[in-house]
């Protein structure tokens, strides 16, 4: 494996960029001129912002077109463009603009928000936060990913690869360590727009299943007392996970 990988979190500060859309045409103009941080904030950050929601999180563009402008068809098509997340900022911008251009210009101007319902373009400013967690191999990495807060997963698997594709990412690090299958799973885990916790659950399930065969094969070659000890550790780990999950489900214990 290469050098240990340091996991980071981020705090997203948000600020208005001073542009508002009142109808589909001004939305198109805004998207065409928006920065990568702005497009990312409105298209993909809802995945983190609404991580508590179990349903597919809506992107801000289609949520506005659907809920405020009430143009369901265009909203659906914008949703599709975001969900099938074009791999880069330029591709996403192009996909969104194409959806809006497919609406005739006159209709783009007519399909407007009511008073005070404008879409306000915002820009995301990420402040990096150290987690103090390092992974030296895939096993350690997956242990960390099972425990870290959602924002750490979001940053490494969604934000950083999309906003800064040239910089070596967590996925590159896993690939460099030779675990191409895990790298692919990491790449796919959240890129489908799944709610964060659901994406994490699926990733962990896949990972554990993949380890099962290897663990059984290794165990058959071990002496009896080691197998017994491994079994004891597995049960203890299971109990710990169940307890942690119950605690984190509802620390308030309210009625």
């Amino acid at each position: 494996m290469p050098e240990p990988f340091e996991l980071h979190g981020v705090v997203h500060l948000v600020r208005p960029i001073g542009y508002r859309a009142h109808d589909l045409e001004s939305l198109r103009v805004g998207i065409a001129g928006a920065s990568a941080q702005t497009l990312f904030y409105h298209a993909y950050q809802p995945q983190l912002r609404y991580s508590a929601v179990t349903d597919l999180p809506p992107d801000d563009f289609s949520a506005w077109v659907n809920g405020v402008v009430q143009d369901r068809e265009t909203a659906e098509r914008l949703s599709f463009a975001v969900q099938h997340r074009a791999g880069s900022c330029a591709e996403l911008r192009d996909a969104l603009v194409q959806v809006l251009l497919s609406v005739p210009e006159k209709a783009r101007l007519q399909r407007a928000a009511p008073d005070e319902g404008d879409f306000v373009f915002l820009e995301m400013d990420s402040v990096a936060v150290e987690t103090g967690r390092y992974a030296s191999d895939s096993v350690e990495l997956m242990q960390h990913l099972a425990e870290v807060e959602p924002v750490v997963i979001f940053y490494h698997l969604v934000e950083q690869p999309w906003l800064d594709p040239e910089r070596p990412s967590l996925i590159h690090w896993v690939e460099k360590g030779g675990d191409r299958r895990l790298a692919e799973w990491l790449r796919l885990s959240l890129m489908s727009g799944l709610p964060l916790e659901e994406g994490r659950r699926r990733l962990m399930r896949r990972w554990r299943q993949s380890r099962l065969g290897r663990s059984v094969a290794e165990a058959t070659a071990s002496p009896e007392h080691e197998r017994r000890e491994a079994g004891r550790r597995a049960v203890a780990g299971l109990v710990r996970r169940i307890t942690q999950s119950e605690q984190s489900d509802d620390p308030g214990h309210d009625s």
Partner: protein
Amino acid sequence: MTLVTIRSDGSSLLEGYRRTVGQRTLTVLERVARRLKGHRIVMVNSTSTGGGVAEILHRLVALLNELGVPTTWEVMPGDARFYGITKTIHNTLHGWPGSLSPEDRDYFHEMNRRAAERLALDGDLVLIHDPQPAAIVAHRRRPHQHWVWRCHIDLSRANPEVWEFLAPEVTRYDAAVFSHVAFVPPLPIPAYLVPPSIDPLSDKNRELSEEEEDALLDPLDLPSRKPWITQVSRFDRIKDPSGVVDAFLLARKREDAHLVLAGGTADDDPEGAEVLNEVQTKVAGRSDVSVLSLPPDAHLTINAMQRRSTVVLQKSLREGFALTVSEALWKRRAVVASAVGGIPLQVLHERTGLLVRSIEGCAFQITRLLRSAELRRRLGQAGREHVREHFLHPREACDYLAVFARLIERGI
């Protein structure tokens, strides 16, 4: 003495939050706090008691100190004349008519200059709250300091003349922080959005036992066998209490329920008393509506009332942020609210609550919720989690620290 000492009953505030909101919510806050190791924050506002800002600061200052970021709180001194001027500034920034005379302007600056001399502003990170102390920056700024102005006011309808008076002071800051995007005026400095938050440990939001709830609610003589539809708001036309009654009466044709309209007493607000009177007249003779005028410190009663309600309404015609919505969501209540002001940030339609635009829409959603315990449970659960992540004090503290971390990093 201007320094406010934060009292502690010996219990750890951080521990209280950890028990209430969970470790996961606090982890990021603790990490951002570590980034500010070696720095010192000074908060400044104009009162240590009364008002939402003082309430937040009591908790925030204690919390930041526990997190290892030394934080002090300075209260700007003033006199009756100064408070009269700042009241005018406050009201006109909210869109009320009024203006400042040249003498008022001079006195405002003079009091800020005096405050700059007297207050202990020796931290390297200074967070000034609201307009009253906004001009201190002109007199006390040191080269190594980062100054941030936190505006808790809705400036969307600000009197232009008064804002033009204040704006040159605001532009002296490194950044400004606003509660909602609609409140942000054009500024040449970075303007960040930090939504306000509720305190899960306060009387208004803390957990209550069934016995406590009974003791608080029994004197109100509300029917215990019917589901309650509740709106907690001051009696003000923009909160649309009349529309609430109309929506309830439409829903009541389909499902049995009891409407509770609870608001603050309106002794110092003639229009409030008028609105209260109108509502009372409108529901006179009805046994399925209770109009309650509560004292300003009835936090525990409001808490109990929200917890016992089947549906909580916020059918405002206009709003600032409407934290009553977060209060209800935190208690896992099903919320029906208008899509105005900061409400859509809290109520994600069909996910954490239901947004409405009309009396009929409101009646329809009330009926829907009364008929489906499963829908109420689903919205209430998601609503609580949404508030846990976005609208509790630890998140607001985290955002302030992140703003400072960003300014330090960029050497602004």
